């Protein structure tokens, strides 16, 4: 009798701590389903999208930077080419200018020389003309004076010595003019 009571008590004894309890399973299932459902519906796609968006953004940024770099490089090459061209051009222009200047100098020198020659020629002509005129003057003057002298000689009727002296002084007078 007592033995039966004891055995009964034994079997009623608390359950083993690792035996799962239905009430806990129920709430665990409910909780996990809600957590999984809401996370899979709201949270994970949003986070995934944010990461993907950023990756895409960074990728396009990088691509844009790459293309900008390419563009900059090509325009740099272009500028350098243009610069070289311009420098070439400038050199050519300077060379041309120098040639032109040379030409001008040569022309000027030639013209100056021509002018000088012309001047010299004119001066010589002038001199010659002046000389001729002077000679002509002299001749006319001599004639005049001769007449004058003749007149004086005639007037005074001079002796030979006086006559000679007079003529000499006259000639001296004329020569000193």
């Amino acid at each position: 009798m007592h033995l039966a009571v004891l055995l009964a008590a034994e079997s009623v004894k608390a359950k083993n701590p690792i035996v799962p309890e239905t009430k806990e399973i129920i709430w665990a299932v409910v909780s996990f389903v809600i957590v999984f459902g809401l996370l899979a519906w709201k949270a994970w796609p949003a986070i995934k999208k944010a990461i993907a968006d950023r990756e895409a953004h960074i990728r396009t940024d990088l691509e844009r930077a790459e293309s900008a770099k390419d563009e900059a490089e090509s325009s740099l090459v272009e500028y350098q080419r243009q610069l070289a061209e311009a420098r070439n051009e400038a050199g050519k222009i300077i060379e041309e200018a120098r040639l032109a200047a040379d030409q001008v100098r040569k022309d000027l020198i030639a013209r100056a020389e021509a002018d000088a020659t012309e001047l010299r020629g004119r001066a010589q002509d002038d001199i010659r003309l002046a000389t001729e005129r002077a000679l002509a003057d002299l001749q006319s003057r001599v004639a005049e004076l001769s007449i004058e002298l003749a007149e004086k000689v005639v007037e005074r009727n001079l002796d030979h010595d006086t006559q000679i002296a007079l003529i000499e002084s006259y000639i001296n007078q004329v020569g000193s003019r």
Partner: protein
Amino acid sequence: MSLGVFVFPPIDELFRWKDIAFKGQFYAINKTSLLVMISSVLILAIFVGGSRRMKLVPKGFQNVLEMTYEFVDRGITRDVIGNDATRFTPFLGSLFLFILFLNFWEVIPFIQFPPTSRFAIPLFLALMVYVLYWFLGFKHQGIKYLTGHLFPAGVPLALYILVTPIELVQILLVRPFSLAVRLLANMMAGHILLTALALLTAYTLKNAPIIALGPFALNIGVTAFEILVGFLQAYIFTLLTAVYIADSLHAEH
């Protein structure tokens, strides 16, 4: 002054809790269930609330969400299953977070009880994974999923007598069982260890305060270790789930 006897309570007392609500009903709520619910609310608040406004330049909190996602997606899904298996990340991520949050109750002051040390929770999770990988196995490989396991290629004929039963037990029982019990055992052992150290500290503090420093320091060290264990067990549970799923998707190689 009497020294008093150091009494360790029966293990039952550490893990079984009285009903808080709906007493005696089959859906009664006790401390375990309450913690499960609180964790769920926390997870949802952090992850659903936090992911409402995702910015292009992540700041503080968003980094945590993205790191969690990347950890599961890259470290578990892609590494174990493959790059084309991102569709499993939501499930694995939820599984990981659920276990992680439940495990961490073990070291939260004044709560200090991991709901995962009740067999109900690991068992349910493991059975869910069990159903999932059988379903995926038959869906992707048909009957070859079973035969490929039971009669692996390249084994001498005579060895099938040995291999086939072992594989059968392995795939039918050992997998879900070890998955559930690994989590249970680690959390249970941690909880028992922490309780024992805490009781020992209290006991020595009453009788010989100087000696109490020993168990107290040990308690702190073990608490830090249990944080690591809590994380590691959540990771391993998820990792093994991923391995089983990968095994279901692709034939044995």
